[in-house]
């Protein structure tokens, strides 16, 4: 495993590259079909990526995508589908905003308090699905979908003026947070400000890698994902693993909205970004659940988001970016599966040839894990 394996690298790179190529070609076809120039929009969007203010926007947006995708990826690594990241991050951000508006501690206590609030809220919301799955056998997919819908109602309820809400014009907000809870950004002058919590996203990525690849818990988690019966036979308690993974996933999900909350909006209002949890699913898939892969995937996604508004000024519709996102996810999952099956067949042939030649099977016959397939 440790040895540098050219074939493995080739297989790992082939999937996303093929997928991206197919997605670009298909989007170009859509553009041609609607009577537009198929190349210019991409040129315009690439040009956008060169401007430093757009780069800052992309980085800020990517930080939230990254955290949400990590939350999804933890579940994927053990065959759990946490579709509820969307509700978890929104509730987490809202609770943090409410606590931030009502508690006023010095900054070195306030910020950890807010982070903790978001983590606990997210973990609690995901934990409901985890407990239901472990004790009652309810599918986490359905449970988290229901919890998303309940979270939406809960948020609207908490926006009511007699609960925690503060009306500002037509906008429902949770009131301005105390300034000690604001996290200063990295000021880049005219280009704008990078959210301070981008650092948190980086730390979470490192933490994710360390926990999954360098701890016993991470090993158990990956083992349960690969084969729950084999993991159970080697002494892993599958129920505890499900619950822990769900809690962990929810805890990270709770943080996904904080970069913008503590760095920019300082209140949870109607304009707060929604749907990041669902996008996180696509991003985690594209990044193959690897902490580095997800970086690229979330940057790609944020680029499509932030560079596309420019298209409106040149006679194109910016929605082509959303089509591209859908096409990318779809072609990514198809190409990963195709590449995986191709790799498997190749390996079987090689092992067969080695066996026929009388070699002893090497230890190197493990197959490539494919993300959240």
């Amino acid at each position, binding site marked *: 495993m440790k040895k540098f394996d050219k074939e493995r690298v080739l297989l790992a790179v082939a999937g996303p590259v093929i997928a991206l190529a197919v997605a670009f070609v298909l989007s170009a076809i*859509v553009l041609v079909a*609607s009577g537009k120039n198929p190349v210019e929009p991409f040129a315009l969007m690439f040009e956008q990526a060169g401007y430093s203010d757009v780069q800052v926007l992309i980085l800020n947006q990517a930080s939230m995508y990254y955290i949400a995708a990590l939350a999804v990826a933890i579940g994927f690594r053990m*065959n759990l*589908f946490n*579709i509820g990241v969307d509700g978890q991050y929104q509730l987490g951000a809202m609770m943090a905003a409410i606590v931030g508006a009502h508690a006023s501690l010095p900054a070195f206590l306030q910020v950890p308090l807010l982070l903790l609030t978001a983590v606990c809220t997210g973990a609690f919301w995901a934990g409901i699905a985890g407990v*239901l799955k472990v004790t*009652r*056998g*309810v*599918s986490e*997919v*359905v*449970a988290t*979908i*229901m*919890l998303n*819908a*309940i979270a*939406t*109602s*809960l948020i*609207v*309820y908490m926006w*009511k003026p007699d609960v925690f809400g503060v009306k500002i014009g037509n906008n429902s907000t949770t009131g301005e947070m105390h300034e000690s809870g604001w996290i200063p950004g990295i000021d880049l002058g005219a280009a704008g400000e990078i959210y301070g919590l981008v650092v948190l996203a980086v730390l979470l990525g490192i933490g994710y890698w360390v926990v999954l690849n360098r701890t016993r818990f991470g090993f158990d988690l990956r083992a349960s*994902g*690969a*084969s729950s019966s084999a993991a159970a036979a080697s002494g892993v308690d599958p129920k505890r693993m499900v619950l822990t993974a769900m809690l962990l996933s929810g805890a990270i999900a709770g943080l996904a909205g904080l970069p913008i909350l503590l760095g920019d909006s300082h209140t949870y209002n109607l304009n707060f970004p929604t749907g990041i949890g*669902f*996008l996180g*699913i*696509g991003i985690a*898939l594209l990044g193959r659940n690897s902490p580095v892969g997800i970086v690229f995937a979330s940057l790609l996604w944020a680029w499509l988001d932030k560079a596309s508004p420019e298209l409106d000024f040149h006679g194109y*519709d910016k*929605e*082509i*970016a*959303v*089509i*591209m*996102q*859908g*096409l990318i*996810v*779809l072609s990514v*999952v*198809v190409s990963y*599966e*195709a590449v995986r*099956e191709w790799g498997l067949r190749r390996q079987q042939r090689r092992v067969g040839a080695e066996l026929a030649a009388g070699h002893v099977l090497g230890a190197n016959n*493990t*197959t490539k*894990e*494919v993300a*959240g*397939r």
Partner: protein
Amino acid sequence: MTAPTTATDVNQPSLEHAPPTGRRMSWPVLLLVIAGALALTSIVRLVTGADGITNVSQMSTALQLAVPIGLAGLGGLWAERAGVVNIGLEGMMILGTWFGAWAGFQWGPWTGVLVGLIGGCLGGLLHAIVTVTFNVNHIVSGVAINILALGATRYLAPLAFEGHQGGSAKQSPAVESLGHFTVPGLSDWLSELNAKGWFFVSDIAGLLGGLVTNVSWLTLIAVALVPGTWWILWRTPFGLRLRSCGENPVAAESLGVNVYKYKYLAVIISGGLAGLGGVFLSIVANPFYLEGQTSGRGYIGLAAMIFGNWMPGGLAIGAGLFGYTDSLNLRGGSTNVHALLLLGALLLVIGAIWLAIRKKFVQAAITFVVGALVFAWYAGTNEVPSQVVAATPYVVTLVVLALSAQRLRMPKADGMPYRKGQGK
């Protein structure tokens, strides 16, 4: 994921007994339960004076809201009975709303219905190609289709609707109505009966009145599709083969069933039904397409299907429940919902007694305490926030799933990858 679980793994013979396939409710028992529930509702109505809860117009709104959820649920049923999990129902519904309105405003509502259906089928076809031919994880594919459908309709909407009267980037021009029908005589008679406020009789009149007053033709088709689906899937050779692909594709293959063909057909029909649900939203419920019109109904349809234990009848009850609670929300129902709190408390207490008779004292005590709390809530307040109403169906689904998930039985090879010849 070295060796993903496949349809072969789950269908190995084992010494374990098969789990019970759910309590079989005979028709008389089921009717008794429904009558009992109605009687309880009637008592609550008389006690609280909230006449709205079984009003004719309330019931007809409930039916209208239940139809798209039920159609999405039927779509889910077809796909899952053939072993393909379809979480892309939402996306297929979105395609249905757009295609339906697009064809509807140009060539008349019935063309719209047909084209919307085809739009949903296209989504289903894509899902089938990705999951059946390429064997991609079903949930992943469904999520991708949801994203893609949203993007495609958002991209197409300005191209198709801008520049027409009443059309904009987010909304289509108006579509003509499909037409409604009211059963003459019967409808008026039932409304009169309903208005009298008699115990039980008026409530039944309200329920039936909702079914015969101002019903769209598409509603009629949707309602007919429930027994229709049951008949096709459980009473025809085609249905038996289709279901065998969801239970044990390897065995089906060994009997000469072309599993791929049946899976493709099932998923395409599934998409068509979801598309029809979308059409209902953009032609009947509203006379136009509006961005974000489905608002998660595809997911709710899926939940209704699981709630109904992968059976058409249960699914219809689930969809009805969602539709009814939705209608309470729409029709300024905070007093009505407040009345229903009493019903909930009563049901919980009855449940507690039932549990106590079956000697499950701990559960009985917990249920009783919850019931008492709900009653206290009822007694202590005059109104219920509308958000509580909005969340009610989801909470109910969660509770029902938590109580009965072990008794639910999904098709055995549901969501499993299958390759031709893998059982050899």
